[in-house]
């Protein structure tokens, strides 16, 4: 989308023109949904967060500073909306998750053939508290101090949850690798599928040529 076209849409949104609102919604739907899916447990949950975020976009559009990229602005709104959406349940999630933490030895997971849907499915399977901290730290690049402030938790809690999130993800990756190996050996497998709700996307296993 060109800059001029974007400004025309923003201008229409300021005037609460419904066509412009829909055009902007469609234009940034995929980008915004990719953020919401990371923080949500499934596609429907993500769609709810997305609409809350777009509601803020439409009602606060006058506050947008055009000297900065619009995509970054809307991305920050989606992240903050997702955090707000889950904030009330986060502390309870932390308490539950602490008991389920388990230690996994140092294993390299660099060489794997997992695609976007596989990895998204793994993140969505994380407990809510782990998922939120992992997203903020590993993907969105916030520091533990910033995360602690955003989620109203201790820095130590943030570090702890990040560690446990990594452990769980590592375990899932190892399981996925083991499943793929078992498939290669002819034994059964149960793939992890991202809960994006649009369709059940089959995981791609390049070694086997299975899938697409």
């Amino acid at each position, binding site marked *: 989308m060109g800059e001029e076209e974007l*400004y025309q849409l*923003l*201008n229409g949104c*300021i005037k*609460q023109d*419904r066509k412009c*609102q*829909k055009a902007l*919604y*469609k234009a940034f*739907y*995929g*980008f915004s*949904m*990719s953020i919401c*899916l*990371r923080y949500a447990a499934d*596609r429907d949950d993500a*769609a709810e967060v*997305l*609409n809350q975020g*777009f*509601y803020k976009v*439409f*009602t606060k*559009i*006058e*506050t*947008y*500073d*055009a*000297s900065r990229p619009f995509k970054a602005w809307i991305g920050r709104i989606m992240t903050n909306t997702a955090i707000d959406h889950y904030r009330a349940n986060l502390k309870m999630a932390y308490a539950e998750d602490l008991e389920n933490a388990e230690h996994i030895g*140092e*294993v*390299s*997971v*660099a060489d*794997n053939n*997992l*695609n*976007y849907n596989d*990895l*998204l499915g*793994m*993140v969505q399977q994380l407990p809510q508290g782990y998922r939120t901290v*992992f997203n903020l*730290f*590993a*993907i969105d690049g916030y520091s533990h101090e910033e995360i602690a402030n955003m989620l109203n938790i201790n820095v130590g809690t943030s570090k702890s949850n990040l560690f446990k999130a*990594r452990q769980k*993800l*590592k375990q899932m*990756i190892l399981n996925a690798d083991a499943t793929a190996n078992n498939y290669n050996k002819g034994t059964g497998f149960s793939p992890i599928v991202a809960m*994006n709700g*649009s369709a059940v996307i089959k995981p791609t296993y390049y070694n086997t040529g299975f899938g697409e």
Partner: protein
Amino acid sequence: MKNEAHKDIDNIFRQALEDPAKEAGFRESDWIAMEKKLDADRRPRKIVYWLPLAATAAAVILVFLGWLFIKSGSDSNNQGQHPIAINKGDKIKPVTGKQDKRDQTVVATAPVDSSTKVNVPATLNFGPTHKTPVASNTTPPKMKTAAPLNTQNNNSQQPADETLLIANDRSENLQQGNPALPQVFSGEPVAALTPVDVLPETTNSTNNNTSGISKTVKKPTGWLKPQLAVTVLASSDINGASSFKSAGTGKNIGLLFSARFGKLSLSTGATYSLKPYTLPYSGYNPNSSYKFQYSPETVTADCRMIDIPFNIDYRVYSKNKNSITIGTGITSYIMTTESYTYNYSYPTSWGPSTYAVKNPDQYFLSALNLQVNYQRQINSKIGFNIQPYMKLPLKEIGYSQVRLQTAGIAVGLNWNINSPPSPK
């Protein structure tokens, strides 16, 4: 080693999830939910152009209610103070004087005089403060009464059916604290008196006047000695440039001095006014060579000024404690602060956002005033005012060169500096 492993995990997910090559596809059902959310939370837009109509309607209702209030007050006064009906040929009945303290009613007594042909009520209500008993055989008081009260006049030449309704004229004298009132009680023969019968002593020909009350009662003439008053007014109004479509709500507080000459009054003073308004950029015509790189869509003005009116009012209604005047006049503005905020169509800060005029100007005889004033007198000195008003532009004012129009309602208190002009 441990950190490397962590970085591996983080990198795997960051690379895949941060900017996915294949984003989730658009779902119409999500937009429908979004639309419902927007529709549910959409607040009705402010329809500012309704404000003038609402203000006008409020003013009309106010005047109507005032009229009703005045009318009802007038009716009750007529019921409480019965006018004296004097018919030639009627006879006076002998009564004995006494004072009923319980209901604070003075009952006057008149000697029997068969030749007197005046029939008046025997019961007079003077209110709680007058307890002086009526003497039955004393010197006639020095007072001005309605002609028929002269019971000694056997040859009255009033028309046979003449009925005198004078309550209203004389009640004004009572309201003004007429000193002649106590003399009523020192004289006789008084067949029957009401407070409204007592008039200032303006002529010696009262007893001999047989031409009717209209000749014996001189109306006050206040033309030479004006009644001066000072009024504090506060108001809220709407201000618009050329129209009220994008009007702003202003606030005013001021002090007015007025001089009343009969039904006419002149007033002037000063009012400090906050006049915000918004106008489209096309209506913004500053005398400046500056050109915007990106034109604002609208301009919001914040003007603070001293409003100096000079008004003339005419009293169209006055009864008891209530009066209504209509008036017109002309206003001059002395701008004290003048600033403009530029609103752009794009949410951007590409152009200047505000401009404050360094030396605000003065604009003499800039607006035509139209006002209606309802006043209720609380006591002889203090009154309460409600004043719907409009200010119509006569010329452009301000740095933005706009024709600023105003409509609003003021409330205030007025204080009579001097006594009302006394009749001669």
